[in-house]
């Protein structure tokens, strides 16, 4: 049971957190033919765009209402109207997703009203899919933006099924948290299909940002779930939500369509995957395919091989709540000690993280804690690189953004196979660090006045 604390300092140093609107825009990127639009000054968009492009090494559609100082003060109706008309004409999207920012929220622009007015004034837009989410920068974090946006998509885009409509039991709605990569989604899709289930992912980043060569050039997203498919999600037999952040969206789906949901807070590790696979077997009525029985064995064997290296490691981890919970729990289950845990925003999972204290803070906090508590393994997104260099400890990059290594979109953490590969990657980092930096020398165990040079076990 961890205590969740918030910092007292006035200055965030080396932020771990990113802002809500780009978390929202990220969710829109998983829809087909989408153009996310940030209602704010053009910098709000360009910073987010740069992050996405550097992470995925792909062209990313993202637009701005380009609010000037004057427009901000007078209100942004004209800018929203012009932006939507311009995008509608120039890029012919299937949907435009709008997120507010700090500037327009401080002014208090009523974008829902703008959209109503705009639909009246421009009949061609009367039925055009527009989804607006309020995501001020000065509140919450990236993960919250994603969470709110997916819930809002369901409220706006999913049709309410008729009372007499029959459920398609082979169809499953999957609501993935923003901590899953396109690679994770592809892995999950394969698992669902192996049980004869037909998953609809909302959002589906695997369709749009998996780095494929597109069939066609479009200035909008090049794949992802279509608006038509979202509309029919009410016909599915089940909704599966992944990550505690998706509870809100799953509840919205249930409230709107009556589709029952099951929330999996984690999909990394042996026990969570057992529960997941058992559930799929149950709802599909099919036995677990041989493939997964073998993969389970491989994961068990990987845990056996790797526990020599991961057991006893003192972990410092900085990540958004769901990723933090998932990775730290899996490593704790392999014998690692979670010594320092820093996150970006509130979440019900935080108090269940297997450590004494979780801090809602920044990478400076993480660095100080890691140093004070003698950590020897660091997990964070790419911005942890400076911290890792100063602490001189092995560094595993996880989460968004990952801009200084390739393959961010394909890094796996879900399923038996994904967990197996992740364990190998982390154990190999530890092995390499020992070979490079901790080879024994004749003086390693030299007798001194300080007593035995064997580190006593420090258990929390």
């Amino acid at each position, binding site marked *: 049971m961890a205590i969740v604390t918030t910092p007292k*300092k*006035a*200055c*965030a*140093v*080396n*932020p771990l*957190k*990113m*802002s809500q*609107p*780009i978390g929202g825009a990220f969710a829109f990127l998983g829809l087909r033919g989408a153009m996310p*639009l940030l209602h*704010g*000054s*053009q*910098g*709000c*968009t*360009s*910073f*987010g765009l*740069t*992050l996405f492009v*550097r992470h995925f090494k*792909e*062209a990313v559609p993202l*637009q*701005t*209402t*380009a*609010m*000037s*100082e004057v427009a901000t003060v007078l209100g942004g109706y004209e*800018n*929203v109207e*012009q*932006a*939507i*008309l*311009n*995008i509608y004409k*120039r*890029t012919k999207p299937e949907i435009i997703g709008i997120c507010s920012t*700090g*500037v327009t929220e*401080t*002014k208090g622009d009523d974008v829902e009203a703008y959209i109503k007015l705009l639909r009246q004034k421009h009949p061609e837009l009367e039925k055009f899919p527009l989804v607006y989410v309020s995501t*001020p*920068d*000065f*509140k919450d974090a990236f993960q919250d933006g994603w969470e709110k946006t997916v819930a809002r998509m369901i409220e706006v885009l999913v049709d309410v099924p008729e009372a007499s409509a029959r459920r398609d039991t082979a169809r499953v709605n999957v609501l993935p948290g923003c901590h899953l990569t396109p690679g994770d989604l592809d892995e999950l899709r394969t698992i669902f299909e192996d049980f004869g289930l037909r998953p609809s992912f909302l959002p589906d980043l695997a369709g749009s940002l998996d780095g494929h*060569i*597109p069939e*066609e*050039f*479009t200035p909008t997203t090049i794949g992802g779930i279509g608006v038509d498919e979202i509309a029919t999600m009410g016909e599915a037999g089940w909704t599966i939500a992944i990550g505690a952040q998706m509870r809100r969206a799953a509840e919205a789906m249930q409230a709107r369509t009556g589709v029952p949901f099951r929330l999996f807070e984690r999909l990394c590790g042996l026990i969570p995957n057992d529960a997941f696979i058992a559930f799929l077997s149950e709802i599909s009525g099919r036995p677990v395919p041989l493939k997964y029985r073998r993969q389970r064995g491989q994961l068990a064997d990987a845990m056996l091989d790797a526990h020599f290296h991961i057991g006893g490691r003192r972990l410092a981890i900085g990540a958004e709540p769901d990723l933090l919970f998932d990775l730290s729990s899996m490593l704790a289950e392999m014998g690692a000690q979670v010594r320092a845990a820093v996150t970006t925003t509130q979440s019900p999972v935080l108090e269940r993280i297997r450590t004494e204290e979780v801090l809602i803070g920044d990478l400076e906090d993480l660095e100080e804690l890691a140093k004070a508590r003698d950590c020897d393994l660091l997990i964070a997104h790419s*911005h942890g690189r*400076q911290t890792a260099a100063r602490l001189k400890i092995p560094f595993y990059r996880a989460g968004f953004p990952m*801009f200084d290594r390739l393959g961010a979109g394909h890094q796996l953490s879900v399923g038996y196979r994904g967990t197996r590969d992740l364990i190998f990657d982390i154990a190999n980092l530890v092995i390499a660090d020992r070979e490079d930096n901790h080879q024994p020398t004749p003086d390693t165990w030299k007798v001194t006045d300080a007593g035995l040079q064997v580190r006593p076990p420090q258990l929390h």
Partner: protein
Amino acid sequence: MSSLSATIQDVFNEPGCAKNANKSDAERKKGCTKQLQPGGAAGGCAFDGAKIALQPFTDVAHLVHGPIACEGNSWDNRGAASSGSSLWRTGFTTDINETDIVFGGEKRLYKAIKEIIDKYDPPAVFVYQTCVPAMIGDDINAVCKAASQKFGKPVIPVNSPGFVGPKNLGNKLAGEALLEHVIGTEEPDYTTPYDLNLIGEYNLSGELWQVKPLLDELGIRILSCISGDGKYREVASSHRARAAMMVCSKAMINVARKMEERYGIPFFEGSFYGIQDSSDSLREIARLLIERGAPAELMERTEAVIAREEARAWAAIERYKPRFRGKKVLLITGGVKSWSVVAALQEAGLELVGTSVKKSTREDKERIKELMGQDAHMIDDMAPREMFKMLKDAKADIMLSGGKSQFVALKAAMPWLDINQERCHAYMGYVGMVKLVEEIDKALFNPMWEQLRQPAPWDNEGDNWQSRAIAQVDAQAAAIAADPVRAETARRSKTICFCKKVDLGTIEDAIHAQSLTTVDGVRDKTNASGGCGACKSRVEDVLAAMPAVVSSTVLQAAE
């Protein structure tokens, strides 16, 4: 905010800017910023520009006063290099929340400055204003002044909130902050007749260090580089330099000009991209320093270094000539000074497509710059499918560009090289140009392209997404050509001025209706060529193509 708007007006009035000098009073007042287009804009905000310009000062703490978006989404994302402190790569932000919005963020800002000074003890703190605190009225000038007095340390306000304009305005506002609060506030330990300022050089990928050894060899001291690998004390005492070079970009022309005005430091605009430009710049530096009192023999030594380096570079490039024979380069750039890159590529035996200029003599320089600037604009405006068609039509073997065109090129299995600011290689000076040629060679002759151009086993040759894309574009073009009404609409909708989004039809109508005969006239009526000015030649072409119109009033008068 009145002082900020006054500063912005002052920046817009920059007399050192050639483009500005050509503008009418009214135009100048509107500024050099193009009108941002909601739903069609790209690029950073004024805050982004200010941060880019100042962040390369390595020992300064850069504190961003605003919500998490401004720093949290953007910190440590620039490839500048430091020879010393890494403090500049540390992200500091007040990360203001709802409570601050309601009660004001000034107290938090003051506390944040105190925390930074207590923990990191930098020689100075730069405080960046952003949109939200500007809206709620946080007075960062006052907070910085109070903090400065209290802590006995320079705390510099950089007043450039994002919504006042685009990135290039932010660059200049950053320059104003330096001029107002930093430059001339300290004295150097000693001075020499060889003290030089470099203005507007950010040391991206460490490229400054491709040139610095040559300056060191000549005994020329970089008193201050604004701002690549710069230190606070150096810029604070930069007013004692003998001469200055404004490197490459006009981003900080206000700094160069005002330092000339206030401290009598002459400057020139030069570039270290390309062999010829590097030599020209070295000569110009030597000339200015000699003018300001350095011994005349500096020029001889400079010429000797230039001769040696040029010979080495050309010899290195010469080796690639046989390999590059018949290879075509599509060069699309407005940013990097194109002309001397063009010269070097041509010298290496590459043929350039995309410019109509076959051999670049010095007279062609302006023309090429103009063309390239125009192409860069055009490609930003293009739909990806059209861009792909253009690549195919150009029959180029490699494309050199920056920005979003890269994904189209790469996905079409076209070798591509980044020559924009995000690139990871340094291309400055003589060594840099050789490096560029080397990189082109690596990209061109990578065996991977052959494989990637093979169709997948389930695809028929000629029936792949590339040819379908081309077919679509061609079909569209054919449909338009077959229909005279659509053809005329398409002809008239061709964009002439990309900055102001003015199409051919609008310009033609204006010329007809108002009997315009000059580019200035067209600019007054339609705003075309009121932005970067690169489309001036196109407007001239439009004017030339129009039958001479005699206005109806003239006709009436004649009757």
